[in-house]
């Protein structure tokens, strides 16, 4: 009661000032983010030879040498990484929440490790390990696996590394989602109503964690589509490494690809946030 009575009543002047402040912040942030983007777009549509505006750099993207391969490779890696990271983090998260709450600090700590270890250190370790394949481990199944994981057409080793890199983000997203729904009570309710564990996960938890799962997937996707260091050092050609390569030869083409991929990423974000909307009406099934 006292809390209600003693809560300060906000004066209109204060609220007005706060509004003005937020508008200023919004403008500063907008300038910070949009000006470089606008500059990039302007750079890509300038016709340096004839003057004026041209869309030729965008239309020439699909034919650029190596682009189609790099894009296909990056998308494949991204999809595999998303599936992989969900396969690792979702069951781990459910296990920690429902059955092994005492392991939560340990799992949380482990999930944060990839953020603490610099990618450059990670990739150095990966490279040394890969070197064992054709070397000490030659002829063994593990050695063969290490060799075949480096297929330049579809380097599975990158999927493995990306799953590790994406774990902190996926874990955070799922953690926030699971904390928001009181999973414990929902699980008890579903169990009490006769659900098997499979039903609990499939009919209750996953539908209510849809936003969190999509968020985890999207963060992973974004990470894989933009990752340069590891792919570059391991000498695989993905979209980011191709971009860097092409930027030395054709600056405007490279920037137009970057811009296009940025817009593509935004589009994905939009799709995710639309898909996460709560249903307001639905067929009664």
């Amino acid at each position, binding site marked *: 009661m006292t809390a209600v009575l003693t809560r300060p009543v906000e004066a209109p002047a204060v609220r007005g000032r706060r509004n003005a402040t937020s508008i200023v912040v919004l403008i500063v942030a907008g300038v910070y983010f949009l000006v470089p983007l606008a500059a990039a777009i302007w750079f890509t549509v300038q016709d340096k030879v004839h003057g004026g505006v041209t869309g030729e750099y965008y239309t020439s993207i699909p034919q650029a040498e190596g682009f189609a391969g790099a894009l296909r490779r990056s998308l494949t890696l991204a999809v595999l990484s998303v599936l992989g990271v969900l396969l690792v983090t979702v069951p781990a998260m459910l296990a920690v929440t429902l059955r092994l709450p005492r392991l939560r600090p340990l799992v949380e700590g482990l999930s944060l490790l990839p953020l603490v270890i610099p990618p450059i250190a990670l990739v150095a370790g990966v490279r040394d390990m890969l070197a064992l394949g054709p070397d000490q481990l030659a002829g063994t199944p593990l050695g063969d696996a290490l060799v075949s994981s480096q297929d330049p057409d579809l380097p599975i080793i990158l999927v493995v590394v990306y799953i590790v890199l994406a774990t902190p983000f996926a874990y955070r997203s799922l953690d926030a989602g699971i904390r928001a*729904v*009181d999973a414990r*009570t*929902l699980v*008890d*309710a*579903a*169990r*009490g*109503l*006769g*659900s*098997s564990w499979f*039903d609990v996960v499939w*009919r*209750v938890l996953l*539908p*209510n964690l*849809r936003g969190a799962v999509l968020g985890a997937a999207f963060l992973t996707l974004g990470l894989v589509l933009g990752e340069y260091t590891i792919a570059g050092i391991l000498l695989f050609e993905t979209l980011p490494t191709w971009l860097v390569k092409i930027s030395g030869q054709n600056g405007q083409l490279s920037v137009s690809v970057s811009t296009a991929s940025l817009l593509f990423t935004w589009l994905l974000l939009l799709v995710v946030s639309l898909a996460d909307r*709560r*249903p*307001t*009406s*639905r067929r*009664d*099934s």
Partner: protein
Amino acid sequence: MSAVGVRMLGMRRSFGAVRALDGLDLVIEPGEFIALLGPSGCGKTTALRVLAGFETADAGSVWVGDRDITGLAPNKRDMGMVFQAFSLFPNLTAADNVAFGLRVRGVDGAARRKRAADLLELVGLGQAGKRYPHQLSGGQQQRVALARALAIEPRVLLLDEPLSALDAQVRVQLRDEIRRIQQRLGITTLFVTHDQGEALSVADRVGVMRAGRLEQLADPDTLYHRPATPFVGEFVGTMNRLPGVLGPHGTVRVLGADRPVAEGSEAAPGDVVVLVRPEAMTLSASDSGTALVVVRTFHGALTRLSVRLGDGDEAFVDLPSPAAAGIRPGDTVTVGVGEGAVLVAAAGDTPARVPAHEDA
């Protein structure tokens, strides 16, 4: 389906060093509505969760009818449960929530929809089937949760403080409705609550728990008028704690009079605490009295007077309002204990709870 009884025998459950259940024996008759009442940490929720199968007991057995279900998984127990927290599945409509248990049982769509609609009607939400949980008020959500629990035709209905998150008015309304539905369906019900008003008003019998055991299991009237132990007496309703001297022959001297000692008293002869209900006190205006009226509160038929005794202790006295009409704060009065046996506790005994200005 005819109602079944429930027996929990010798239940033990420890969480680390805390004994949540310490040899609990609880027998619920078929179709009976039992409320478990007790301070927080007394083990009442653990008892309910063990019965539901969400917790496993360290020792003891659980029987429903003549079947031992001690080791049975919760999804095989056929019990309907309503939780304290709002537990509806946020992604499903009210009707789909109610039908959930039937869906996992493989009941076909038309039968499911029919049953969900019937149950929503039963809890007074016939029109709300297409709404999602976030479009319902707290009271409506708990009604849907009740309908969902009943949809599977459970053998036992479990209610885990289902009203505690609701507003006072909704709470009373839903409480009465739960009782009405329970009586209509004749379903064996266990209701856990820390609110004695709730427990006493709806249950056939109320079990008062303390430290993992049942202190007393009795109908509300017996519980209130003939508490088995000082703890029960003080936990249920309001009790005055008056100083007294216990004699050797089963009588106790309190406020200048000798009264017989009630069964269940726990004290050795000598200085003791005498427990007396406010309505069992007597009071008369008297200029030579040693007690002083401090506060007067009007409760309709009764008026409660808060009185400071000669030794500085305070006591409540409930009088029929007409009898209290002439008595004002500041008056000196003589206070006594009415005829009849009184409950006695050891002098060092701590109160079950701080006597509060509330009605039982």
